[in-house]
């Protein structure tokens, strides 16, 4: 029997894959080898010049990358802790359980840019309600224009917006856990803390790792929050890699160079996430 026709059924999927994944990446690689900008449009060939510039003459990108690491690791860590706590809270039968589950999901369902505009108004240092409150105690914290506090504000907004995502994944994980280990723990006389440490947490490790990696991938693309809240300021204190690539590409119109930044960023991210996933598996699954 000839099964060659089966390849025909794979063709549409393959074409879609080529169109939406392979071609853009291939084109970006080609673009990164050109000097395309506002004045010289077109795919000329300049070899690795853009990459040389990035590695030898662009400390701002690497500083932005360091900032991105700090912001994404901190926000995801906080999201995991808070998301897990909230999931545990509504896992068992409690009053208004359904209401709480919906309530906790609301931030995730709102549009990030719009909510960031709202947060920007809330934290507005002279007109916002937060400083109205603090002024009662004679304080006016600079939420958006202090180097340290602006980072804190970005983290706060990110945690508020995306903790529900973590909550949702972890709650789904908790609801799918088998009952037998808990019965065994109960027979052995384990209290709630020991049950969590020795039963719930290990059983949740695979889904925790998945949730953390998914959120890390998303958090590393942080752009809209920074763009709306601080534009990367004050100075460059909240400028992240993606925002910097956006500036180079769509503000300064250095397409060739921003493509080189994007490809470099992509490679670093693939390597980083592979390493992080391995560390998490070692810590949370094998480490016990």
């Amino acid at each position: 029997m000839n099964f060659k026709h089966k390849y025909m059924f794979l063709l549409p999927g393959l074409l879609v894959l080529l169109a939406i994944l392979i071609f853009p990446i291939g084109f970006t690689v080609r673009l990164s080898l050109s000097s395309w900008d506002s004045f010289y449009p077109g795919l000329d060939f300049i070899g690795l010049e853009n990459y040389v510039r990035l590695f030898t003459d662009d400390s701002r990108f690497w500083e932005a990358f360091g900032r991105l690491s700090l912001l994404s690791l901190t926000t995801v860590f906080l999201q995991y802790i808070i998301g897990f706590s909230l999931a545990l809270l509504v896992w068992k039968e409690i009053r208004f359980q359904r209401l709480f589950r919906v309530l906790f999901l609301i931030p995730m369902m709102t549009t990030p840019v719009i909510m960031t505009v709202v947060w920007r108004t809330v934290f507005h240092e002279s007109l916002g309600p937060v400083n109205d409150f603090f002024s009662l105690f004679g304080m006016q914290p600079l939420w958006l224009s202090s180097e340290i506090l602006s980072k804190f504000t970005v983290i706060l907004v990110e945690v508020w917006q995306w903790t529900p995502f973590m909550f949702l994944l972890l709650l789904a994980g908790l609801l799918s856990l088998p009952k037998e280990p808990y019965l065994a723990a109960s027979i052995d006389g384990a209290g709630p803390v020991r049950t969590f440490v020795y039963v719930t947490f290990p059983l949740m490790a695979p889904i925790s790792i998945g949730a953390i990696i998914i959120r890390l991938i998303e958090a590393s693309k942080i752009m809209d929050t920074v763009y709306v809240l601080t534009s990367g300021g004050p100075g460059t204190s909240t400028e992240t890699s993606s925002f910097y690539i956006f500036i180079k590409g769509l503000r300064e119109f250095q397409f060739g160079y921003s493509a080189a930044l994007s490809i470099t960023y992509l490679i670093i991210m693939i390597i980083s996430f592979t390493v992080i996933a391995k560390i998490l598996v070692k810590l949370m699954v094998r480490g016990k």
Partner: protein
Amino acid sequence: MKITSSVSLLAIGAVLLAGTAQADKWSDQFPHIKNSGDIPGQCSYEAMSKKDYSGQKLTINTHAVPVMGEPTALHAEQFSALTGAEVKVIHTPAGDLYSKAMIPFQAGQTPYDIVFGFSNFLRDWKQYLQPIPAKYVNMKQMQDVTQGHIDVNSWGGEMIQFPIDGDRHYLKYRKDVIDNPEYQAKYKAETGNELRIPQTWKEYAEMAEFFNGWDWDNDGELEYGSAEVMKKDDLMYAAFFSRSVAYSKNPRVKGGFFFDLETMEPLINGPGFVAALTDWVEATKYVPPGGMNFGLGDEINSFGGGQTLFSYSWDDAFVAAMQDDSPIKNKVGAAPLPGSDRVWNRLSGAWEDTYNQAPYIVWGWTAAVAKESKNHDMAFDYLCFFANDANHQADIAIGRFGVNPFRKSDFLPEIYVKNQGWDPEIAQQYSETLLEMEEGSTNLVFPLRVPGVFQFNSAVATGTAKALAGQLSPQEALDEVAVDWKKIVKRIGADTVREAYAIGVALEDSE
């Protein structure tokens, strides 16, 4: 010369005011022009109603509502009703206007017949734009545009962008405070200085500091010294240049403000610019809390809402302050940008201890027709209609529209008194300030209009933002900007940048 100008202005004013009184059939149909009715002209309501563009489609990319986006949509609707054209208006955030047009331009596509943007896009956009046909350049409506704004919209003597707005940075101040005898006495007693419209940035800083952080208008709220655009990348570089011109634009030194035209060496880290940035860093002490994160909208709201003593940038804050619903209507004044008591001479390498002031004719809104558009006639008619006399008079009275004076007839105080209820003295001062900047000064600075202008401005924004945030000293920050500028010039080519920059320098040096 001045007498001739004044007589001409009076004549134009008389004609305009005579034409403003009557309601007509067009104002019944289009209430936007209810104060003036239709005003005869090549692109009046009457003239447009005789055109027939039925079955044709015009696509416009403009700014988000309300600034420029609202009048674009309003006039599109009117144009459609008059001519039968189908007009599609797409609204785009300011930061994306350049790229949203540039990407299809470079790809050889024409999704928009008309593109709105800023006048400093001109060098990068010009090869994709259709020059304004002679019949529009020579029409009466265009003859009323000031020479400065003809220049801003032209390249090498050819008009490419259609003048729809006029922009310059000038000083706005709280007249009820500066002119208040009680505060004048208090200021004199405590500082030994006169409380007056600040003549220098030093005076500006002293007064702003004095009036910072207390309730000087007795409204129960704290007021502050100055509202400025300091948010990184949000037009902040224009604010920095406004502060720089007095220290760096020496009327006795020709050949470039941003670069030495001969060598194309950046001048941005010279002592004049450093002095301005040092002042600006000091200014962070007398802006409202969070003022370092103020974008243009915040600046407008802050000064327009009565929160600060001073402000300087585009007209919008002043117009907002003078609108009917403003708590400080008729309590504000306009004046030229402060000067300095010394100016850097880069040829002698020394400061000249003499008073210097220079107006900054900053870029503003403009619009143009895509070269590859199939609807050139209709597109130019739309722009001409947008800026016709009746629409223009109505538009400049609405602060949120972002349409500011750019015609000689706009500098008649009577218009603002009659149409907008301004105090005659304030209207007079406002008109004189703007007109003097346009026509009176011989030390103008025009915006940078060179290939890759965004790369240069972005470098300035990053450097100055670092200085404001305390990450670098003013000298270090501007040295970093100069290094970036050198790299950009090298990438694009010194001769290419020089060729474009020479056009701006010629405008400055010919004054």
